[in-house]
């Protein structure tokens, strides 16, 4: 048996492996947990050779809240609102993942209206997540203005959510058995107004960032990840698609009303930062397409099919289902022993696996490349730590 338990100290106190003929000294730098571009409390221990990154050792857990343990102590409906706090920019998709596994396991029924509303709000949230990412990405590359434009446009979607759902970030809207409220009477009008507005803003996004020569120079060929490695490292979502693998659960295992709408899956070629940028920009356009197709065709029906106070009993066994959030595949593994609380609930979060690719992507680049790469993964730290 060769099990050896290591420590962080042992991990980062390795011998210097300077390869330069000039005798330069490598050194460790803590990037984070409080660093502007680690988007929260992520800590990366960098081994640097001058400006060049030789090794990235992510240190996690600064915002670990034990959501999985908390889930074992409440019933199924009480778990739904906890996952809002994982990837707070895809709170609705997170809700949907839990809802889906509970509905599938407990054989609860839904109708088309519920599914249409879920699909719509999730796509709107994908747009707003990508808008925020776009702004933050600009900020990480040193351009401050995109941040405000991205947030300004995101605000429009938040206002729509505020009207229908009553919350802006942690929504707890999609529930086992339906959605918490029916859509607001203004919803359709507001969404259409937003789509018109947003379509007029996309060219501005392109002029400000996409076409900019500095952006192009900063992103092309940086942080490459080949398709084989992307799958082996467990990447999903735009990170995987940018590497050229058209793996999108909305197409391959359609849930909600995704099978009834027409949309394309944008795929990159080389898996560099530029491809990831481009894939997300294109995904926004595709999400607009999905919303446009659905917004006039929301079927009639009830929006909550069970009594909310009724206990949900899930038959004993292992249940798993996954959804495509703005960052990748969010899976919820539910192990039930037949009681009304989960025996064990595990969330496979997209950022956890995507972050693992940073070592492969950023090694050999500069610090500036590391920041760009990290931002192009679009990490949300609470989603990593859970």
């Amino acid at each position: 048996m060769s099990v050896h338990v290591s420590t962080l100290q042992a991990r980062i106190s390795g011998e210097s492996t300077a390869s330069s003929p000039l005798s330069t000294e490598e050194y460790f730098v803590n990037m984070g947990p409080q660093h502007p571009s680690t988007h929260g409390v992520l800590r990366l221990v960098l081994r640097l050779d001058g400006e060049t990154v030789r090794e990235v050792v992510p240190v996690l857990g600064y915002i670990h809240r034990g959501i999985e343990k908390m889930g074992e102590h409440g019933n199924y409906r009480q778990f739904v609102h906890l996952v809002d706090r994982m990837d707070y920019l895809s709170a609705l998709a997170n809700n949907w993942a839990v809802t889906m596994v509970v509905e599938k396991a407990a054989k609860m029924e839904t109708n088309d209206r519920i599914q249409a509303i879920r699909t719509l709000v999730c796509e709107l949230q994908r747009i707003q997540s990508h808008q925020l990412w776009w702004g933050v990405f600009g900020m990480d590359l040193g351009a401050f203005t995109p941040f405000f434009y991205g947030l300004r446009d995101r605000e429009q979607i938040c206002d729509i959510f505020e009207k229908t759902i009553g919350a802006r970030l942690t929504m707890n809207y999609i529930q086992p058995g339906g959605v918490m409220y029916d859509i607001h009477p203004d919803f359709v009008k507001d969404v259409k107004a937003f789509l018109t507005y947003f379509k007029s803003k996309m060219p501005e996004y392109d002029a400000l960032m996409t076409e900019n020569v500095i952006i192009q120079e900063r992103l092309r060929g940086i942080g490459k990840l080949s398709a084989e490695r992307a799958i082996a490292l467990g990447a999903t979502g735009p990170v995987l698609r940018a590497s050229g693998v058209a793996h999108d659960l909305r197409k391959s295992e359609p849930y909600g009303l995704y099978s009834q709408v027409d949309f394309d899956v944008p795929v990159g070629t080389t898996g560099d930062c530029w491809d990831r940028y481009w894939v997300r920009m294109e995904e926004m356009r595709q999400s607009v397409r999905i919303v446009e197709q659905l917004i006039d065709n929301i079927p009639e029906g009830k929006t909550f099919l069970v009594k909310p106070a009724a206990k949900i009993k899930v038959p004993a066994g292992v249940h798993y289902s996954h959804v495509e959030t703005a960052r990748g595949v969010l899976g919820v593994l539910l192990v039930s022993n037949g009681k009304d609380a989960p025996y064990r609930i595990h969330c496979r979060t997209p950022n956890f696996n995507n972050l693992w690719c940073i070592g492969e992507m950023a090694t050999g680049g500069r610090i500036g490349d590391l920041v760009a790469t990290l931002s192009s993964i679009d990490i949300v730290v609470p989603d990593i730590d859970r």
Partner: protein
Amino acid sequence: MPADSVLPPAESVATPEVLPPPEKHVGVGGAIHGAVPWIDKSGAVGGVFRAIRSLFGGMKITGGYLMRPSTVVTQQYPENRETLKLPDRFRAQLAFNHDDNGYHKCTLCRICEEACPNVSIIITGREKPAVSKKELDSFVWRLDSCTFCNTCVIVCPFNVLRFDGTFESSVYDRRLLSYTLNQYAGPVASVLEKLEDPEARKAAMEARDPYSGAAIIAALVEKQKATKIAERAAREAAKAARVAAKAAAAAAAAQPEAPPEAENVG
């Protein structure tokens, strides 16, 4: 990167194919609606000019916003208090639905208390109900631990609770974040309306202060502390017994084994 030593050579990893594409996939990264031609046509001089033009394109956008002050989206919050309208469903503060007479319909069924994921609702019944069998004494809602998940509102069978948009709830003492939501302690609306005599109604009701929740919680915490200590002692005893049993079983097996490493490293 020690991962290099661990990982298999790239060839041994199965080469993935692109998923069977049901329909089309959008093409190659970079060809974004013909918007970025200059980098792909890398003529040196033309590239430089297109690059410079791209910079001016960005400056046109920002300059355009500077020239149009009407595009400013800033809301100046305390000044616009009068005009600031929050949507009806906005979840800012839990509130009781009192009817026109000021009566509520809470029957003390405690469904919301059970449904609350983080014990933010503490309901106490009156020790000496005046009229009916069960009467609400105080409905304490703890804003400090509430996650605004709205579950209590949707589970309530009598539509007693609602979230309203009074969001200015910051205080300097967090004990003030425990609100007593009911305005009176006493029976529900239907019982009160059966009482003809206004004096009798008044006698059945006892006014409640919104900030009396802190005392109730403090008393509750004191009570729980005692039970918790007892519970912990019991748990520890059970654990010791289990460990002893296990050790005995191991001794009985008489199989000398190395202690699991997990114990050493933990």
